[in-house]
C-alpha cells in the first residue's frame, strides 16, 4: 500500500480524496495555486505544496510542477480527482516515468478511451450499440460540414478529447453549423489542447444513464449499478441519483453487462464509468467511457456501501477485487445535488466572490462533500462547483424529502449559488414522478426566477441591510447577553479555567 498520496486537484474532490486516504492511514500532499491560499483542501492535507499562479494552465494543469511536488514530498502515488488532468494520458505516463503510481487506468487506456472516436468503435466492436454519427477527429471543417449533412440535424458536435460538456455544441439548423464548429473547436482547444470534433445525431429526449465499473486488471470486472444523470443544464449535470427511476432488474442487468463488455474490450483497470443514452423506448446507446472518478460517485457509494476512492487506491496498489458481482445489490435510494457558484437568474453566470456565511446541513442520511469554508474567496479560474449534497433513504420519495430538507438548511451567503434553483427543482411534481430526460430542466424550469419575497421578507431585508448598523451591534448578544437580556453565566467566567 502507498504511504503518501499527492492529490493533483482542488476543491471538494481533493477534500474527498484526502478523507479516503486518512481512513486508510495514508499521508496526503495537497497542491494549491495562488488563488487557493485559503482553500480547505490545502489545510486538510498533511502537507501542501504551492504550484504556481491562479491560471490552471500554470498550476493544476502544469505536469512538471506536479511531478516535482510529488518527488519533493516523497509521495509514491498521485490521485488526479476529476477534471484538470484526470483524463490526461500524458500526465498518467509522466507519473509512471517519475516512478509514481497514477491512481487510475494506464495512460494507454486513458488515451484510447479519451478519444471518443476510438471509444465508439471499440464499443461497437464489442457488440454494444452506439449513437449514429461520424467519428474521424482528424477531419477538417469542410469534411465535418459534409458529414453533418449526412448525419442530419439536429446534431451534436463533441470534442473528441473532451468530457463534461466542454467543446460540446447542439446544432439545430445548418445555418448555425459554422459558428458552432468554430466555437466548439476553440473551447475544445482551450479545455483539452485538442480541437478534434466528432458528430453524433441527437437522440430525441433521451435519458442519460451511466454505469459504474471497477476492474482490478486481474480479470475481475464488476459493475456497481447505474446512476441517473439526466438532470443537466447546458450538458452539465446538476442532480444525479442511484438507482435510476424506472430501471428494472432486467434493464439494470443489460446495462451492467454492456458496461462490463466495453470495459473488458478496453482492457480497463481501476474505477471507470460507462455512459449511455437511453431513448424513450428504453433502447440504450453507448456514449463514452469516463476513465476517472465521477463527480457523482457518492450516490453509488451510498447505495452500495462501497468507498470508490478507497477502491481506486487499493486497485492502483495492486490489490485484487475480492467482491463478486452477485454481492453488489443496491440498497435504498441516493440523490445528489451539485452546488455551484452561479447566478440562476442571470443565465447561470459564474458568481465568484467570498463566502461570508456558511452553514452546512448536518442531518441524518445527508452527506456533504464540500470544498469551501467561511471567508474563502471563490476564484473565477476554476470550475464553479462548491460542494455536493447527497441524501440517502430507503426509497426515492423519502430520499427526496431528505434532500429538500438539506437544501433548505444549507446556507451559503456572499456568493450567488444555484441552491434556490435546486430547491425549486426538488419541488417540481414532475421530478417527484421521476419522468426524467436530458431536456427536463429546460422544459420544466425555463426562465426560472427566484421566489418573489413576501412583504415580511422585504421588511426584514430592509432592516438587516440598514447601513446604520454598527459592527458592535451586528455582533449583538454573542458578547454575553441572551435574548431576554439576562447575562449568560458562562460568559462571566473570565479568568477562570475548567480543570
Amino acid at each position, binding site marked *: 500500500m502507498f504511504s503518501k498520496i499527492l492529490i493533483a486537484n482542488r476543491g471538494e474532490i481533493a477534500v474527498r480524496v484526502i478523507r479516503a486516504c486518512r481512513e486508510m492511514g495514508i499521508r496526503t500532499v495537497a497542491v494549491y495555486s495562488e488563488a487557493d491560499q485559503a482553500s480547505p483542501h490545502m489545510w486538510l492535507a498533511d502537507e501542501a505544496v504551492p504550484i504556481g499562479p491562479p491560471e490552471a494552465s500554470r498550476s493544476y494543469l502544469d505536469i512538471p510542477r506536479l511531478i516535482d511536488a510529488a518527488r519533493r514530498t516523497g509521495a509514491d502515488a498521485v490521485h488526479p480527482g476529476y477534471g484538470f488532468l484526470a483524463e490526461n494520458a500524458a500526465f498518467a505516463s509522466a507519473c509512471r516515468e517519475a516512478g509514481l503510481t497514477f491512481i487510475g487506468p494506464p495512460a494507454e487506456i486513458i488515451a484510447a478511451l479519451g478519444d471518443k472516436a476510438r471509444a465508439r468503435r471499440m464499443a461497437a466492436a464489442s457488440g454494444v450499440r452506439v449513437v449514429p454519427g461520424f467519428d474521424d477527429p482528424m477531419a477538417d471543417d469542410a469534411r465535418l460540414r459534409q458529414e453533418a449533412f449526412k448525419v442530419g440535424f439536429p446534431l451534436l458536435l463533441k470534442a473528441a478529447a473532451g468530457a463534461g460538456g466542454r467543446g460540446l455544441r447542439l446544432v439545430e439548423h445548418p445555418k448555425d453549423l459554422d459558428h458552432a464548429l468554430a466555437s466548439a473547436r476553440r473551447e475544445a482547444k482551450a479545455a483539452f489542447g485538442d480541437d478534434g470534433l466528432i458528430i453524433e445525431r441527437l437522440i430525441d429526449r433521451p435519458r442519460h444513464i451511466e454505469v459504474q465499473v471497477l476492474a482490478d486488471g486481474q480479470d475481475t470486472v464488476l459493475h456497481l449499478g447505474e446512476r441517473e444523470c439526466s438532470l443537466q443544464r447546458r450538458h452539465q449535470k446538476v442532480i444525479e441519483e442511484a438507482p435510476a427511476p424506472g430501471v428494472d432488474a432486467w434493464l439494470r442487468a443489460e446495462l451492467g453487462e454492456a458496461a462490463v463488455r466495453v470495459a473488458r474490450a478496453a482492457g480497463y483497470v481501476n474505477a471507470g464509468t460507462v455512459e449511455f443514452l437511453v431513448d424513450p423506448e428504453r433502447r440504450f446507446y453507448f456514449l463514452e467511457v469516463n476513465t476517472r472518478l465521477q463527480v457523482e460517485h457518492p450516490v453509488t457509494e451510498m447505495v452500495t456501501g462501497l468507498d470508490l476512492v478507497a477502491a481506486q487506491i487499493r486497485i492502483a496498489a495492486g490489490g485484487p477485487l475480492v467482491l463478486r458481482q452477485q454481492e453488489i445489490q443496491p440498497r435504498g435510494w441516493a440523490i445528489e445535488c451539485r452546488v455551484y457558484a452561479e447566478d440562476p437568474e442571470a443565465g447561470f*453566470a459564474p458568481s465568484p466572490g467570498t463566502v461570508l456565511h456558511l452553514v452546512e446541513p448536518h442531518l441524518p442520511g445527508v452527506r456533504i462533500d464540500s470544498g469551501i469554508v467561511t471567508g474563502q474567496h471563490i476564484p473565477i479560474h476554476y*470550475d464553479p462547483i462548491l460542494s455536493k449534497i447527497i441524501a440517502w433513504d430507503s426509497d426515492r420519495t423519502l430520499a427526496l424529502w431528505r434532500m429538500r430538507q438539506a437544501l433548505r438548511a444549507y446556507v451559503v451567503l*456572499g456568493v450567488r449559488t444555484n441552491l434556490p434553483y435546486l430547491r425549486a427543482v426538488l419541488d417540481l411534481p414532475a421530478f417527484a414522478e421521476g419522468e426524467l430526460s436530458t431536456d427536463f430542466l429546460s422544459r420544466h424550469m425555463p426562465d426560472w426566477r*427566484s421566489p418573489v*419575497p413576501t412583504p415580511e421578507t*422585504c421588511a426584514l431585508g430592509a*432592516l*438587516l441591510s440598514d447601513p446604520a448598523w454598527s459592527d458592535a451591534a451586528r455582533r*449583538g448578544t454573542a458578547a454575553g447577553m441572551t435574548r431576554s437580556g439576562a447575562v449568560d453565566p458562562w460568559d462571566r467566567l473570565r479568568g477562570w479555567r475548567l480543570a
Partner: protein
Amino acid sequence: MSPQRIVLAFGSHAVPLEVAGSLEHATVRVGETTVTLSVEAMGDGTYAVMSNGRRQLARFASDGSTHYMHIDGETYVFQRRAAEDAQPVPATGAGYHDVRAPMPGVITQVFVWGGQPVRTGDPLYVVEAMKLETVIRAPAEGTVRRVRRAPGDRVDGGDIVVEVEGP
C-alpha cells in the same frame, strides 16, 4: 424619526419600502402592506426576527453592495438604494445601451466594431469565466457606438464592453 424611503432590488424585482421606528420596533410599509417587526443580532451573522407574533432565525451577510439573506429555508440576494435614485437615468437618452460584462472573466472574442449596425440578439462578444464561454448579445437593434475591450482583456462584472445606440 421620519420614515426612510428605500428600494430593495431582488434581481429584476424592485420593491419600494418605507421604514420607520427602530430595530426593536420597526414599522415597514411594503406597497399596501404594513409589517411590524423587531430584529436582534445574535452574533455570527444570525438574527432573531419577531414578526406577526412568531420568532424566526435569519442569517445575513453583505459584501457592501450586495446583501445576502437566508430565512425560512430560502435565500434572497438583493441590492439596496435610497428611493430618490430609484429611477436610473440613461446615459444619453433612450435607445442607448451599455452592454456590460455579466460576470468577471476574460473577453475571448469580439464580433463587432464601432459603427456596425446590429439587430437584437446578434452576438457582440464572448466572455469566459470558470471555463465557460458566454455569448453576450445585442439587447436592442442599433449601431455599435464603441467597443471598449479587446480579446484577452480581463473584465469585472458590470464593466462596459460594448456601447450600442438605438436606431
